């Protein structure tokens, strides 16, 4: 075996030039080559204690797959990841590895941690490009399980159960499977062909995917049991977008991040002359500092905006988005208005002519400057308004990206399903809800969180469902 590569820094991820990519929807990060992947893999010390595995919500055997890369056995590496994760090509792209596996990496103490996420992505892409072997459908064990929602938690739960021989049907409300992976995360960060490929792999394992079925409306959870399903996993995702409650939020040109991204991603409004319209160009302000806000801002830029602002009420240090996303956004020219909070959205109104087509559209936004005060109960320093600091930001589109509240559809049609005071479904450590044989996980339980934590929840529930049904 090659000697460990003791370079303190990791191999750089090649990316599209920022000035070029700001005008296209192609993927930003281009991925490692085989040589670079092996070089990066050789930075792994193969620690006996495997701290990185502890940091992974789905417990991928990280040193083991990296060892296979060192040997040049990329398919072998894929098979190891595949034992723990149903969506490696997705996770390699969107997981916040820097706060999970990579944050525990020993190499990170005196330099940069091993690029685990980049290696995972490399392995998954290699498999998807070169492996022609079809996944083998396991023999059915006769048990039927229904999955509500085809986002990361649902797909993971479905995949794990299908591999064990369960007959799994996934019900999706929208017209395409993938949940947030298709309506939320943009093409330039996660190409939709990759999601489609992962869904296809599950179908080959025998998973049935029924689109256009809204559980809670088209069918209820009780009806699923009547249809012969023995367990149900609810991974219906986060729900309705939050707004700030400031004047002007109903003006034309004010979007929630969910709406803005859904129009662009799921409905393909980024294409030329699309059926689904979206406001393109002009000056855009995105309010919020999470990954979704970064996605919305960078989407607006690619749709042709001349200026895009991120408006966030705390400082860069508290900004919750992944560093990499923030860096990419800055490189592309997104203007970060930090310690800044909108208090009113201004609209056009022509008192002379009520039929003026510009009436009701956004013309700007009044903001106040903030400073950081005492830490709150979570330890984050509370932003406080600086008196007399009002100023106007000249914008014509606004995207509110300040979180979501749980969707009421399932709770309102499922008797005995307990929810907490925020509307999130209450579960025990196995993902079991207050209803017999009904499990839940992902954003429907936790509120907005990451793809990988949702996958972890799907995995936990799959294990519990298997234990309950194989008794």
């Amino acid at each position: 075996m090659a000697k460990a590569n003791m370079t303190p820094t990791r191999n750089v991820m090649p990316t599209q030039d920022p000035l070029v990519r700001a005008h296209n929807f192609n993927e930003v990060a281009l991925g490692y080559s085989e040589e670079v992947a092996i070089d990066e893999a050789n930075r792994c010390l193969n620690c006996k204690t495997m701290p990185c595995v502890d940091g992974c919500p789905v417990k991928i055997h990280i040193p083991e797959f990296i060892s296979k890369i060192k040997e040049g056995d990329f398919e072998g590496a894929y098979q190891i990841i595949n034992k723990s994760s149903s969506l490696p090509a997705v996770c390699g792209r969107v997981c916040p590895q820097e706060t999970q596996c990579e944050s525990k990496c020993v190499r990170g103490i005196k330099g940069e941690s091993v690029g685990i996420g980049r290696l995972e992505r490399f392995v998954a892409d290699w498999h998807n490009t070169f492996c022609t072997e079809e996944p083998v459908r396991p023999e059915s064990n006769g048990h039927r399980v229904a999955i509500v929602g085809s986002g990361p938690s649902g797909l993971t739960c479905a995949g794990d159960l299908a591999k064990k021989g369960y007959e799994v049907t996934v019900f999706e409300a929208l017209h395409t499977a993938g949940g947030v992976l298709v309506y939320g995360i943009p093409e330039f960060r996660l190409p939709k062909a990759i999601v489609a490929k992962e869904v296809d792999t599950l179908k080959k394992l025998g998973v049935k995917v029924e689109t256009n079925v809204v559980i809670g409306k088209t069918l209820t959870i009780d009806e699923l049991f009547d249809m012969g399903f023995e367990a149900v996993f609810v991974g219906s995702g986060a729900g309705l977008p939050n707004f700030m409650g400031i004047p002007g939020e109903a003006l034309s040109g004010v979007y929630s991040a969910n709406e803005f991204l859904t129009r662009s991603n799921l409905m393909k409004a980024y294409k030329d002359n699309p059926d689904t319209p979206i406001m393109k160009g002009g000056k855009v302000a995105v309010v919020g500092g999470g990954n979704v806000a970064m996605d919305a801002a960078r989407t607006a830029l690619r749709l042709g905006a001349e200026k895009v602002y991120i408006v966030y009420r705390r400082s860069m240090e508290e900004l919750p988005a992944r560093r990499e996303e923030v860096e990419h956004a800055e490189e592309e020219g997104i203007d970060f208005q930090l310690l800044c909070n909108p208090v009113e959205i201004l609209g056009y109104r022509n008192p002379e002519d009520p039929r003026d087509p510009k009436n009701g559209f956004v013309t700007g936004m009044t903001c106040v400057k903030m400073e950081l005060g005492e830490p709150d109960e979570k330890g984050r320093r509370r932003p406080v308004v600086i008196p007399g600091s009002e100023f106007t930001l000249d914008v014509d589109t606004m995207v509110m990206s300040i979180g979501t509240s749980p969707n009421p559809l399932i709770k309102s049609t499922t008797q005995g399903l307990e929810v907490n005071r925020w509307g999130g479904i209450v579960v025990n450590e196995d993902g079991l809800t207050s209803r017999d044989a009904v499990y839940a996980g992902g954003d429907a339980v936790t509120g907005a969180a990451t793809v990988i934590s949702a996958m972890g929840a799907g995995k936990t529930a799959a294990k519990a469902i298997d234990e309950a049904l194989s008794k």
Partner: protein
Amino acid sequence: MYKILEKKVLNPTVVQLQIEAPFVASKARPGQFIILRVDEDGERIPLTVAGVNKQTGAVKIIFQIVGSTTEKLSHKNEGDYIQDFVGPLGVATHLDGLKKVCIVGGGVGCAIAMPIAEALHEMGAEVTSIIGFRNKDLLILEDEFKACSDTLRVMTDDGSYGEHGNVTVPLKEMLDKGEKFDMIITIGPLIMMKFVVATAKPFGVPCTVSMNPIMIDGTGMCGGCRLTLNVDGKKVTKFACVDGPDFNGYEVDFDEAMSRGRMYFGYERHKHEETCNLFKKEVQ
């Protein structure tokens, strides 16, 4: 894919389709809606269910050609398929306990009002229907309303059929005469519903309106269909897809809803004015 079982052209701009969707047919109740896409890459549009046949699994929709998607849909024929059809969505109209109701429908809104009138009639309630159209050519569903209404008033804006005037005229006349309705249910253009509510207000009759804002997912995810209610002097944001489409007419901010409804008007017109003269006319 969802099969078109039957097609009927009701007037030059309004088409009725029966779509095969057994799950939706078995569940849908008056006031609920569906979302459809005509083809791959098509737009998602909400349409209120105009009736169901549980035996055949057919769901009836009636729509006016107002833009590119409805135009495309109008070119589909019996035996053709549409890409997506999902529902039933939204909360059904609350009809329990109603004994004497006035239904006020305008234009293609009458298609949504009709199943509500039918349901009330079957419940044994006394149904007064007022239906209004721009002119005689745009009249739809007169016979259907006749069959389920104790009193029917047909209005046209230009007097080319029925009585001359808009729907608020007979409504005010009846209320003035002392008619006591448990509820007025009104469905049609926003401006019409706004004036129906204004007409009913001095008489204190409860008034339900059916809102039909721009939607995308229709399942409580995107927030595009939000509208503002004034509840006891407080502004409350509601979502038509999961909280509606029916709301208390006295609480709805109609001016805001009308303004939001015009958001993509320029886009639609620009995109299609060369292909179809219909879009130059105003939507009724």
